[in-house]
């Protein structure tokens, strides 16, 4: 059954699969239909090539400010925003924190890896995560050796990454998986002490027999991944996680079953995502109203929607970017500042389970942070050169046009009457004496509205 490519459904698809769509992009989905639009969104052939952190991985220090600017700029300008959105999904799924990892270039490498493998086979992805240097540090995997297995990674591998809490594995499976996963060690670059990856050291690996899911053998880490990803619990868990973060609601059993079947056949993440985005239930009213936009997603939505000029972290150092800050380029710290204010930094999830979901973003503390960030973003939108700037300025004083411009930039196709009157109240409050403040106020009110707070 084809899904109606109404403007509402088209905007919903672009807000969830990507970071929101401008009016021309929404109309394009309406024209070609949902299925063809999903094909285009998930076509990796147009994705920009992103490599190792060349400039960053050298001798220059690399800060979280640069890392976040790099990713937000990539996400906002990419011709394949759904590929970037998927990398962000995996970075939340495999939540890793810079506080413990310490090397930002390792976080960069991890994100590049997740982006490269994110649409492929899940077992390949999981094996790469097991070898990832940042993950090794984060969950103590490189400290787990024969005779002294550390359960941290083995437990989270099953609980958080592949099967779900208490879902088809036992404590004994965790202990045995920990033994199978022993022996990974960090490697550095030509003896410099700069961590660049991991290798498996045979002498530190437990070669003995392990019993996992009732089978016994001299298993290693890749065997553990293969055994896990062959299980139905894994297929259902990954289907649920993807629905959780893209749809937001509790999926019906039949939805989980459909998605798990699509995924389990070839362990293809592409199959899973494509099936989900073309499922009629994905466009149900409760799903359309069922997900709170995470702060970083909101930032990318605004940067993309209003063409805000984020500096190019691959080309410029922070010092250079600071010097070239002007009407055509925002200051280098600005992305980080917005994220900090709203409580989300790219490489700093609150714990190994990743970012909060839905209502946890709506308490009075978060709501206040969103308001402050909305004001700061409103200043940026009103200040920096962009194609939207002229249109916005010229719409001040014309309530209908201003709300239309804000909708266009925020990927919304309809406001509720409450929000529309709140925007009008904000916009009308300064018109005579200070149009600049009117614009900022209208922007901030729109940004904190349910229409934009919800993804």
């Amino acid at each position, binding site marked *: 059954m084809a899904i109606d490519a109404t403007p509402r459904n088209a905007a919903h698809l672009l807000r969830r699969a990507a970071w929101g769509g401008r009016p021309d992009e929404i109309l394009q989905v309406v024209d070609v239909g949902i299925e063809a639009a999903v094909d285009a969104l998930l076509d990796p052939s147009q994705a920009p090539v992103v490599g190792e952190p060349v400039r960053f991985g050298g001798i220059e220090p690399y*800060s979280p*400010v640069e890392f976040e600017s790099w990713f937000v700029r990539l996400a906002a300008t990419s011709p394949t925003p759904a590929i970037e959105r998927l990398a962000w999904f995996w970075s939340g799924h495999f939540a890793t924190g810079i*506080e413990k990892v310490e090397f930002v270039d390792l976080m960069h490498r991890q994100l590049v890896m997740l982006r490269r493998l994110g649409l492929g086979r899940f077992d390949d992805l999981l094996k790469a995560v097991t070898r990832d240097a940042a993950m090794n540090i984060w*969950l*103590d995997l490189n*400290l787990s050796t024969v*005779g*002294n297995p*550390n*359960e*941290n990674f083995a*437990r989270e591998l099953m*609980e958080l990454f592949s099967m779900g*809490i*208490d879902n088809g594995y036992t*404590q*004994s499976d965790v202990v045995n998986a920990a033994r199978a996963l022993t022996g990974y060690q960090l490697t550095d670059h030509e003896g410099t002490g700069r961590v660049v990856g991991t290798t498996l050291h045979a002498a530190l690996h437990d070669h003995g027999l392990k019993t996992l899911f009732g089978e016994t053998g001299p298993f290693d880490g890749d065997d553990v991944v293969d055994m896990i990803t062959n299980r139905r619990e894994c297929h259902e868990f990954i289907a649920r996680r993807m629905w959780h973060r893209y749809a937001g609601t509790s999926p019906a059993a039949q939805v989980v079953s459909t998605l798990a079947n699509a995924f389990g056949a070839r362990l293809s993440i592409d199959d899973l995502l494509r099936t989900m985005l073309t499922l009629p239930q994905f466009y149900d009213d409760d799903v359309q*109203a*069922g*997900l*709170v936009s995470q702060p970083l997603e909101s930032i990318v939505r605004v940067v993309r929607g209003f063409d805000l000029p984020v500096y190019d972290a691959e080309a410029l150092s*922070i010092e250079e970017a600071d010097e070239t800050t002007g009407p055509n380029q925002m*200051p280098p*710290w*600005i992305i*980080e*500042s917005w994220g900090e204010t709203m*409580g989300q930094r790219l490489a700093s999830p*609150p*714990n190994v*389970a990743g970012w*909060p979901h*839905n209502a*946890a973003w*709506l*308490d*009075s*503390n978060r*709501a*206040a942070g969103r*308001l*402050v960030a909305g*004001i*700061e973003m409103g*200043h940026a939108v*009103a*200040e920096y050169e962009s194609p939207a700037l002229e249109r916005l300025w010229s719409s001040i004083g014309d309530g209908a046009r201003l709300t239309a411009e804000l909708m266009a930039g925020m990927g919304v196709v309809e406001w509720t009457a*409450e929000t529309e*009157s*709140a925007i009008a*109240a*904000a916009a009308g409050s*300064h018109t005579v004496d200070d149009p600049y403040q009117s614009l*900022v*106020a209208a922007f*901030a*009110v729109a940004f*904190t509205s*349910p229409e934009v707070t*919800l993804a």
Partner: protein
Amino acid sequence: MTIPSPHPLPGTDQRATMSRRRFLRIGGAAAITGAAAVAGVAAADRLRRLDEGASATDVAYAPRADVNPTDLILVSVQLTGGLDFLNTVVPLDSGRYRDLRGAGAEDQATLLPLDRQYGFHQSLPTLSQAWADGELAIVHGVGLSNSTLSHFADTDTWARGRLDVGDGTGWLGRSLDALAADVDPLIGVSIGGLSPSMYGPGWGAVALPDDGRLPWSAEFVEENPGIVAAYQGLLGVSGRPGAPMSLAEQVRGSQQLVRDVADTVGGATDLERAAAAMELFEDEDEGEEEGEEPSSERLIGNRLSLVADLINGGLPTRAYHVVHGDFDTHAEQAASFPLLLGDLDQAIASFRTKLGANASRVVIATWTEFGRRPDWNGNGTDHGTAGTQFVLGPSVVGGHHGEPPPMNRFDDEANFLITGDFRDYLGGLTSGVLGVDPNHAAPGTTRPMELIRA
């Protein structure tokens, strides 16, 4: 790491003299003095007295009229990650302990002896003194009968106060809800994010930033009248985070909550109040370097300091929630554990000093999702089951509560046996401190612990 200080964007401040930091500080200060305003101390009067040379601390706060000054206040301290109780309350002269912990065993000579059986980790002098004063309860062996050894499942169970899924409310939220027919959201304050333990039926408690800095200061209002006007237009929309209603309603509710909290705590419209507040808080900001951020461990000190300000400010709040961690010491426990305990201990000492006379009203109670494995893993400890909790305050029934888990008999997964039901702990805590039926906190509690003196 030094984070570059954001310079103000054009237009954020037409007077061009106010840094962002200062802007935020006024916001935070207003949050605190708002409490004083509620307490009925006129801003003008405080200003006058400050002008006359009175020190900030002389400008004392009187309690709010509807606050009973003898009501006990619960400060819930969540020790995230799973506290290793065995290296916190250490058995004395125990060969069995040394066998289990090997290289990870605490040196007996460094312990602070509690009695003939146990000694505290050396990083806990404040708790040790409280024990000697009879103001500390050590509650042994508390855990979940359905533990999965997962941080998240077990933390959720603790926050719910029940083994079953329930209705999404938390143990503190339900207990606070039982205190009044029409609950003021300020009855519960969560520092940082809103703890799910404070989700009430149909409402959510207030969450404040770690530093108490709300945006809704007098300066904020002055600079953003358009937004204030627009938010006024949203009045009358119900909904609170954590309440069982649609997300869109909850967004509206959170917008209104920001406004409500600002009105009550922040004092949105009185410029004088903000000015007075700046003076009041000048001392505290001294010595704080631009761009310097406290480590995550040190944050417990900031959080409890803010709680002390709010209590001293006479808020109607009966329960606060703060977090401290991360106690998930799988690796390098020998290095991190003393810091984690020491920061907690110092934070509690400073907190009680700052509270002054109000310390008599405060009960500090810890909870942690589980303890850790008896065996040392070579570098730290993996997830366990039974945990030890601490309750501290002048009204606490000091001493050992419950039975320590046996040291020589473990469960099927080589973990300590649970000897106390977490529901009896939470039920006893809330009935003792808040005076409500323990079944609100913990449906099904059978023997609520007697932790608070009647």
